[in-house]
């Protein structure tokens, strides 16, 4: 690299750094340019982060997995890459008039021999190896590692506000990757390769073909980054599929850090033509997949506004869209109201914590004592069940290790600062979204999904009108489960909010995503032609 090129590169870097509000990450080319100016030779630059592993034990992978000759279009697979757990469902595609058949794709079996529907979205780097999913969780528990060690919820790297195309420049934190080998993008590719492999194993078990079209759900993105994020996400998915197909043995449970590093680097370097892009159907907005049942239920010849609220474990996401059901079209069309999309990093886990603290507070134990910590650890294991019972029965009785019983009412929990604040934030983002999508409508449909779909805030949102900037409107709750799914699969009704993205995303008649719009639809009023005088 000569001085002119280095100068040019560093000017660009300076420009990028000026407009960036946060940290600016350097590309390898920029580092080389700096070396040119600093007079150092590349090899001598001290670094604790090897860029690429040299081939070891004759492991010389070649990433070449072009599009398969034939694609099975009789089934559709949807990969739901969730924050805490990932899921996959396949669905028959026999024509839009027939009710499709659902295939749950289980990720192996639990110790009782039952199929497992949930795959922990986790990675663990430990002792020279990278562990995936269940293996990561199991290893994490065996070594009793700190929570920081676990790469939990890699999906958060690509949520609202994130630029997926920049993830390669973002290394994992030292606590998660002490070797400094992997970027956030690498973590995504590795986990998605594992997820794809597990889903394809399940496809085989269900007697389905592997080369079927697959959809993948993605969260809402900023309008400016949607296009680049979509493109990058598709590329990441294609790399993940290629890796899992070419090197399945590396992605079953764990692989070495060296192999993982070489694989992700080679995959990243592969040309688009060498990756199976044809296996990827359209990407699906999570809100569209989650609210599929309600959106598909839009009345014929109607245009309706929807707000989809997904209260998960770690994040609460809200998205808005306008759905149009023109009977002349095969599928209902959905247009995202892009600015309505918002996310807050508070959700079900915050309720768990609030309930835990409330129980401990009522126990009378002094914080930071051994007893307190012990009760806290014991309660944490069953806190989700206690929360579920509390919201179902309006009260719950928790037993402490000491044998004491603590009764908590739902009013007590919802009266805590943490819960008031959480519900208030949820109400605010839902109000914003509803006002944005409403246009001239006075009523907006609300679709609640995720583990928090039955929380009291949902009832509260529909009971009381939403008011903002002098505008009032009401929310009307719509079920997220499609009618024929609830009729044919009654055991899916209760867990559906947690499975909504995977099931909805696999349905052949999923609403068709069309161009995003910036706000709800309003009547522009009458237009009059005015006289134009020409001199």
């Amino acid at each position: 690299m000569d001085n002119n090129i280095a100068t040019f590169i560093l000017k660009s870097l300076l420009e990028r750094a000026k407009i960036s509000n946060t940290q600016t990450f350097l590309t390898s080319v920029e580092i080389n340019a700096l070396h040119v100016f600093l007079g150092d030779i590349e090899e001598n630059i001290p670094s604790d982060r090897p860029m690429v592993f040299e081939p070891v034990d004759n492991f010389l992978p070649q990433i070449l997995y072009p599009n398969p000759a034939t694609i099975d279009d009789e089934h559709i697979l949807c990969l739901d890459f969730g924050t805490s757990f990932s899921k996959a469902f396949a669905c028959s595609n026999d024509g839009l008039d027939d009710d499709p058949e659902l295939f749950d794709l289980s990720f192996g079996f639990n110790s009782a021999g039952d199929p497992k529907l949930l795959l922990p979205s986790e990675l663990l780097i430990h002792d020279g190896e990278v562990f995936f999913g269940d293996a990561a969780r199991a290893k994490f528990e065996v070594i009793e590692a700190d929570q920081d060690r676990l790469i939990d919820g890699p999906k958060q790297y690509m949520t609202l506000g994130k630029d997926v195309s920049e993830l390669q420049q973002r290394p994992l934190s030292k606590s998660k990757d002490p070797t400094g080998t992997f970027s956030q993008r690498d973590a995504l590719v590795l986990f998605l390769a594992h997820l794809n492999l597990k889903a394809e194993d399940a496809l085989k078990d269900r007697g389905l073909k592997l080369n079927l079209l697959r959809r993948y759900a993605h969260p809402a993105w900023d309008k400016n980054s949607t296009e680049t994020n979509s493109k990058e996400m598709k590329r990441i998915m294609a790399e993940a599929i290629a890796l899992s197909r070419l090197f399945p043995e590396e992605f079953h449970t764990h692989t070495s850090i060296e192999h993982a590093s070489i694989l992700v680097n080679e995959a990243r370097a592969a040309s688009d033509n060498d990756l199976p892009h044809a296996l990827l159907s359209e990407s699906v907005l999570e809100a569209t997949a989650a609210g599929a049942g309600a959106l598909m239920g839009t009345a014929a010849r109607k245009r309706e506004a929807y707000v989809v609220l997904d209260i998960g474990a770690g994040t609460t996401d809200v998205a808005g869209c306008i759905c149009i059901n023109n009977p002349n079209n095969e599928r209902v069309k959905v247009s995202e109201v892009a600015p309505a999309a918002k996310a807050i990093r508070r959700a079900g886990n915050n309720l768990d914590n609030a309930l835990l603290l409330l129980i401990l507070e009522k126990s009378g134990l002094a914080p930071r004592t051994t007893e307190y910590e012990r009760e806290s650890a014991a309660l944490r294991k069953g806190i989700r069940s206690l929360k579920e019972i509390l919201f179902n029965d309006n009260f719950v009785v928790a037993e402490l290790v000491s044998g004491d019983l603590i009764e908590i009412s739902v009013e007590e929990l919802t009266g805590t600062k943490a819960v008031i604040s959480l519900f208030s934030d949820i109400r605010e983002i839902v109000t914003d979204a509803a006002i944005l999508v409403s246009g001239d409508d006075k009523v907006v449909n609300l679709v609640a999904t995720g583990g928090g779909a039955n929380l009291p805030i949902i009832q509260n949102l529909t009971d009381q009108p939403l008011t903002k900037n002098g505008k009032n409107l009401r929310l009307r709750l719509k079920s997220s489960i499609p009618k024929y799914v609830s009729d044919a699969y009654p055991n899916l009704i209760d867990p559906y909010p947690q499975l909504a993205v995977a099931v909805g995303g696999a349905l052949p008649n999923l609403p068709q995503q069309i161009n995003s719009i910036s706000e709800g639809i309003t009547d522009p009023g009458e237009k009059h032609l005015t006289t134009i005088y020409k001199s």
Partner: protein
Amino acid sequence: MIVMDTDSSSTAIPPDSHWPEAVMELRQLVQERRLTKETFNTDSFQALWERVRDCLNSVHAYEFWVTVSALGRAASVSKPAENLVNAVLAKRFEKPLPEFVNLPDGEDRFYLAKSLEQAKRDETSAIAFSQLASEETAEKARRVWLRLASSSVPSLAIFLAKLNQEIERTTELQNLSADSICRRLRRINSVIDDFLATSELEAGETFGKEVRWFYLLNLPASGPETKQLRDDCAKEFMISLSKLVRLNFAASTEPLVFEVIYGLRDWWRPASPSIEFETQAHHIAKLGVRTLHAFAKQGVKNKPLREALVSACGEPTLRRLTQAIAESDLSLEEGVSHWFIHGVEAKEIKSVRSVDALSLAKLDEYIARLLISVTSSDFDQDTMEQAIDQVKDIMPDEAEVFASSSSRIGQIKQWANAIARSRRISLTPERAAIVAYDPSVHSGSNKINIGSKVLVRTSGAAKQIEGRPSVILVKAEVDRLYGQ
């Protein structure tokens, strides 16, 4: 005054027509209330009577019909007069009747109808339907014509078919406006609705079709132009339909009867009918749902009837009505019940294996926690009974309450154990046991060395699976033993 009749089933009154003298004299007697039993025996009356009888054989149709009418009027005076008249008429009605001539006066037409009631002839049926459908017929006379018309048909369907044909014919002939047609139909309906609802005649195959024709197709599709008339007409028709569906089982099973509601509602499109209309529609639909339920109880899915009810009141209302009935009738077969509410066959219930597994795993955990709770030291029947023994002498009432609760403890434990056993869930290790610490099975404070002896403070629970290691559902809480 001579009225020209425009009805083709009857002949117009000749311009030079007049009442025969004998008939005029007979009417005079009636008007002067001199037609008494004593008068019958007088020579003058016998002579008059002879002349009246001659009029019945007149070659002029008009004279015949006014004579029959006058005799009808005479018969209404007294029972002896009725006997006298009936004998004469019966004899005359054995022979063919001349062509019908519509009389100008309403009362005369009424008495004519009364007289014809006893004539069991084909000609009288045609006359009756014609008069029933006629614009000018007064209500009293129309009721008599109804009796005559209905007595000549084997079924309600044929009755309505003939009436509809007659209405259509006269409508075409007279070129009536929508409002006039409507008014006439209301008059006809007010006379026949009770009959339709309560008649013992069988319904006939095309009953529903004819009901629909009568209430809907006789009118122009857009309904009467006058708003008030449209409201009144729809309201009356709905009340009649309600009566018909309520009292006539055959009508309540006829889908086309319910489709009338949809047609009447259509008069208002794109606006909506009155609340009264919708209330009646709801009422009729409710009656229809009862019939639908009666079919469903026998395992019959009467699809056309359900579809007609949907057209009458809409799917959401129908679903509410059917749901309420289905919820109160557990005897309905499951598949039929689903169809009854939703109108479609219940889908084959499919299971999602992994979802079932998730639910069962959660259930197992709940059972495990229940088992741990009921075996805790403070939920012990013996302990409670000992306490009761100590206080029962000084607090007998309270002791009795606690004794009942104590028995319940035993029962709750019994069922909890039974549930746990059926799911192969058991306590392991049990409370107060001393075991070697294993973090995969035990949970303890601080760091305890694996394999060191610990005391079980709270039991854990596990599920036994044949041929596999047990699955830990709840870890036991353990305490470090001093000296370990």
